[in-house]
């Protein structure tokens, strides 16, 4: 800190710090957020983060929407892995309503959630490369995110803001094309991931840029409410999938990769290893899906007519289906009184939903526990005393998504 890079001549004016406005829109912030950095030379004295530029009042809007219409709001939190948010929300509703989902639904969900996790980690890790000056890796793995998005399209029709699934399961069974694309992904992705890894993992420049940069101890990380890969990089093996299993994650074998130093390099490595683990979970889930035969292979939602939108052909031919269709579309279904907190392991940490219901048709209060909102406050501590270029690396290694942060 006290090290002076520019030696001022005797008697010259007193050295003052300079202020740098990084953002609100800047290629290095990857989202609409502002960082006011106080610098002496290139060293950071203090950082002040301003967020909220894309705050859209989702929590307020949710208070006037029936449960099914809130899914579209969750899409827009962490838009790099929308299906994860969608399913986290559906599972919160199911917890409130006391719905048990069939195993096949759970496994289908696991497939979509792990694909979303890979897409999320892939973006974060490759963007870290871009910020360190390596554009190639980013462009190379983009085709596999494209493949994941094609699977999304097969399943729900949308790519980015997916609105995937329903309370109780999925809107339709997975098509054969969806499974074919999944097979293609499982066959081709490992090789590309290995190549991507080779490009960065022992790359001298990348290591120099990331090792020992933006590190945090396990105690501080826990105190700051870190979750997800950022916490695991600091050496804490906390993973919601293991600690409070949802969607039958207890049926899968996988390990939780942990780091030691909590720096940018460890965060990158943890995400990289998690992608391998996700691949293994995907393979296990696909095997389990294939073991369902006959009518069992037709199950893609739980039997909850009051909340699950019936199929269109039934609406046209059956009285009950028509009634439920009308009630769900018009938001006329009362939800039970209760308070639930449910969380899922999202791309960048524990995404929680705190839902308070007073028995009306929409939540009385809904609060999103957005992981990156909570851990971004540590940014000043992470970058204090380091160089300006380290701040850029730290920011991209934290996987900050402005949409999630500002809700």
């Amino acid at each position: 800190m006290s090290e002076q890079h520019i030696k001022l001549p005797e008697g010259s004016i007193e050295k003052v710090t300079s202020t740098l406005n990084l953002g609100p829109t800047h290629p290095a912030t990857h989202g609409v957020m502002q960082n006011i950095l106080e610098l002496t030379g290139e060293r950071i004295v203090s950082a002040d983060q301003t967020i909220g530029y894309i705050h859209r009042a989702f929590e307020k809007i949710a208070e006037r929407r029936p449960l099914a219409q809130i899914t579209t709001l969750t899409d827009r939190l962490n838009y790099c892995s929308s299906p994860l948010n969608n399913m986290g929300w559906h599972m919160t509703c199911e917890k409130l309503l006391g719905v048990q989902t069939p195993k096949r639904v759970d496994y289908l969900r696991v497939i979509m959630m792990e694909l979303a996790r890979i897409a999320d980690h892939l973006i974060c890790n490759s963007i870290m490369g871009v910020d360190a000056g390596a554009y190639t890796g980013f462009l190379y793995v983009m085709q596999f995110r494209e493949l994941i998005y094609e699977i999304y399209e097969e399943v729900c029709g949308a790519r980015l803001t997916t609105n995937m699934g329903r309370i109780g399961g999925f809107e339709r069974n997975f098509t054969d094309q969806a499974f074919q694309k999944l097979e293609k992904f499982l066959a081709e992705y490992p090789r590309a991931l290995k190549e991507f890894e080779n490009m960065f993992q022992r790359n001298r420049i990348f290591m120099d840029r990331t090792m020992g940069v933006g590190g945090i101890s396990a105690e501080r990380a826990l105190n700051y409410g870190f979750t997800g890969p950022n916490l695991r990089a600091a050496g804490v093996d906390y993973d919601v999938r293991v600690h409070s299993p949802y969607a039958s994650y207890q049926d899968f074998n996988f390990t939780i990769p942990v780091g030691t130093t909590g720096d940018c390099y460890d965060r990158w490595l943890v995400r990289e290893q998690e992608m391998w683990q996700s691949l293994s979970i995907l393979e296990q889930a696909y095997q389990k899906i294939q073991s369902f035969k006959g009518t069992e292979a037709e199950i893609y939602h739980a039997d909850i007519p009051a909340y699950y939108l019936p199929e269109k052909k039934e609406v046209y031919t059956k009285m009950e289906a028509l009634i439920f269709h009308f009630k769900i579309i018009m938001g006329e279904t009362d939800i039970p009184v209760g308070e639930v907190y449910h969380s899922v392991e999202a791309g960048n940490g524990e995404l929680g939903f705190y839902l308070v219901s007073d028995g009306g048709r929409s939540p009385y209060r809904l609060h999103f526990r957005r992981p990156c909102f909570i851990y971004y406050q540590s940014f000043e501590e992470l970058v204090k005393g380091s160089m300006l270029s380290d701040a850029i690396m730290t920011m991209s290694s934290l996987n900050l998504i402005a949409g999630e942060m500002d809700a």
Partner: protein
Amino acid sequence: MALTNPIIQQQLQEKFGESVSAMVDSYGLLEITAPRELNLKVLNFLYDNPTLQFQFLTDLTGVHYPSKKGNELAVVYHLHSLKENLRVRFKVFAPLEQPEVYTATGLFSAANWMERETYDFFGILFLGHPNLKRILNVEQMDYFPLRKEFPLEDQTRIDKDDEMFGRGGTLKQID
């Protein structure tokens, strides 16, 4: 021995007596309620007690209950004991006229922005907070938007039948 809800209830009972209540809700989560003056004492106790060790603040937020006179604003903490892998919910209530609770920033650095957010949306003042200013909304804003007196749409509109959607224009009593 694994930590269970009855153990926490017993420990709280021994320490705080009748002033702190702890009930298991219908989803199996222990819900602790305390007078707002005691919020830091309870949080400290949950944090430091060697058998409990609720040292991870998962979530902190507010809820506005206009019908609960004298207890309109709730501050809700979700705590996680990572060692025992158990969660609890902790609530304190504050009146609308004097919405003051002590800050938890001394215990949890994570509480800093969460309390700012709660202040931003509910106007709950966290006494002792190092930097209690708005975080997501503009600083010039002079109201607290998540309070229930601000409906999403103009409730006097007659061209739209609100009975169909949600609350039908009037605030429903919650008990």
